């Protein structure tokens, strides 16, 4: 069990989400940065899709009530474990009574704290992800508060040895603001000039951005389509263009259907680059092809698999 001693303003339980229920109106949800969540899990010997804590915005402290392992991945934070500074993307051991404090966010928006065994709240619709708009998943479908205690499952094997660090080529990185996109179902309605406007210069992430969608500011797109179409299913990463002409990138908790034209869709592997950007940060949309971004998706899966393999080797070396 771990205990939230001092909750930050945003702290939830997340895993890789609940695909399979979109026909019921339930979005897949899950971690805003699945890459970081999977990385944190592998660092503590969990399967990549185990439930962990998604932490944003500000400082807070958690305490262990059982010895084990932990790791932080994603947004770079200044954090200490029992007073000693922590690195990102590295395995740490914890004792019963250990406390971890995130002091501040240095870069990025969502950091993931994984614990060996995984957070063991009851699954709802096959996932432990917190879906705040529906008030289900996670701990009673809500943000975590100071004093909350979270069950942790028994580890399913030894964690990698402490000091195991993700090698740089496999590490989640967010420096680039270049996100690949492919044309969406309604791209042709915007014409070549609409597309050119989308990709010609960077956008800024607007302050009105949350787990449902990130608004892009800076430039309006000109187009001549009706503002709404008959509602149709949409996906995370879809870039909708409402009447105002300011695009919105749909994120993990976005509704399953939408009526605005979808000009483009962000590559799954690049969506974390957007998720991790702060209001005011730039993002540049770069045209790609479905076959290229599907290759990138497979490469990401291979990278996570490689990391799991290295983690197991490190575990064997550590215990031998």
């Amino acid at each position, binding site marked *: 069990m771990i205990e939230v001693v001092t909750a930050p303003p945003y702290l939830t339980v997340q895993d890789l989400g609940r*695909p399979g229920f979109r*026909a*019921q*109106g*339930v979005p897949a949800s899950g971690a805003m940065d699945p890459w970081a969540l999977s990385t944190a899990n592998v660092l503590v010997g969990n399967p990549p899709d185990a439930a962990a804590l998604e932490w944003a915005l500000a400082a807070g402290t958690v305490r262990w009530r059982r010895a084990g392992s932990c790791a932080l991945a994603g947004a770079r934070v200044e954090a200490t474990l029992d007073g000693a500074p922590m690195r990102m993307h590295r395995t740490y051991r914890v004792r019963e009574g250990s406390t971890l404090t995130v002091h501040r966010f240095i870069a990025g928006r969502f950091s993931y704290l994984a614990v060996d065994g995984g957070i063991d709240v009851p699954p709802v619709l096959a996932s432990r992800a917190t879906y705040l708009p*529906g008030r289900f998943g996670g701990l009673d479908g809500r943000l975590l508060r100071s004093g909350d205690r979270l069950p942790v499952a028994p580890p399913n094997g030894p964690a990698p040895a402490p000091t195991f660090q993700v090698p740089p080529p496999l590490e989640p990185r967010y420096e680039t603001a270049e996100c690949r996109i492919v044309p969406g179902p*309604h791209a042709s309605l915007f014409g070549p000039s609409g597309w050119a406007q989308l990709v010609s210069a960077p956008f800024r992430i607007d302050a009105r951005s949350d787990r449902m969608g990130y608004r892009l500011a800076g430039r309006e797109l000109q187009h001549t389509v009706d503002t709404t179409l008959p509602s*149709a*299913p949409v996906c995370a990463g879809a870039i909708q263009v409402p009447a105002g002409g300011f695009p919105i990138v749909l994120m993990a908790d976005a509704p399953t259907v939408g009526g605005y034209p979808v000009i483009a869709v962000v590559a799954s592997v690049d969506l974390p680059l957007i998720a991790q950007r702060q209001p005011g940060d730039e993002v540049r949309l770069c045209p790609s092809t479905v076959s290229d971004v599907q290759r990138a998706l497979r490469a990401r899966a291979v990278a996570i698999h490689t990391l799991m393999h290295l983690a197991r080797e490190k575990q064997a070396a550590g215990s031998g």
Partner: protein
Amino acid sequence: MSDPAAPDRPSIVPLGDTALSILLGDRVDAALAARVRALAERIRSAGLEPVREVVVGYAALTVWYDALRTDYTVIAGALQSILDQSPAASPAAGTPREHRIPVRYDGPDLTEVADRTGLAVSEVIARHSNRWYEVYLIGFVPGWAYLGDLDPALVLPRRSVPRTRVPAGSVAIAGAQTGVYPLATPGGWHLLGRTSVVLFDPSAEPPALLAPGDRVRFVPVAG
């Protein structure tokens, strides 16, 4: 790139790297919605291995697939063969499920709707409750069903200022549609009444009470 405005000739387009959409038209009509549902059913029953989910809209459907096991070209080709198999055949629709939903017509917008439509309150209630509605699609929030078509006399634009919180169970109208808020959410529809029927229960199987193609009738009950 295919033209989504081209009517009645289904076209397959990618929706990112893990889904694709099949566009059948660009309008809201019951016959088109029935074709969308029938096609969704054919795709589900074809049991293509990489297909994960099939979700319908008014005039389009979306297929989610496992992009680690296949790629767009292959899955689009397999779906094109399904489209080619029975091109213009009208679907043999089964008997739709029917739901009667009791409503206390005491919503905060009832009198305003009566004023704006020039109808008596009792007439608003009668016109809302005297017909069967069809579930076009599920979405917006879990379990939300877009129901149509409303009596033309009740058609109003959405409220100019949406409410920040509409209670769960609120029965509402907007445009040519009606629906029931499954969860407390922000909303801009006109609230006519309330029901105690649970539209969405994550512990139920399936969690949403209504499904596309179902028929719904609202039954006035005393408050």
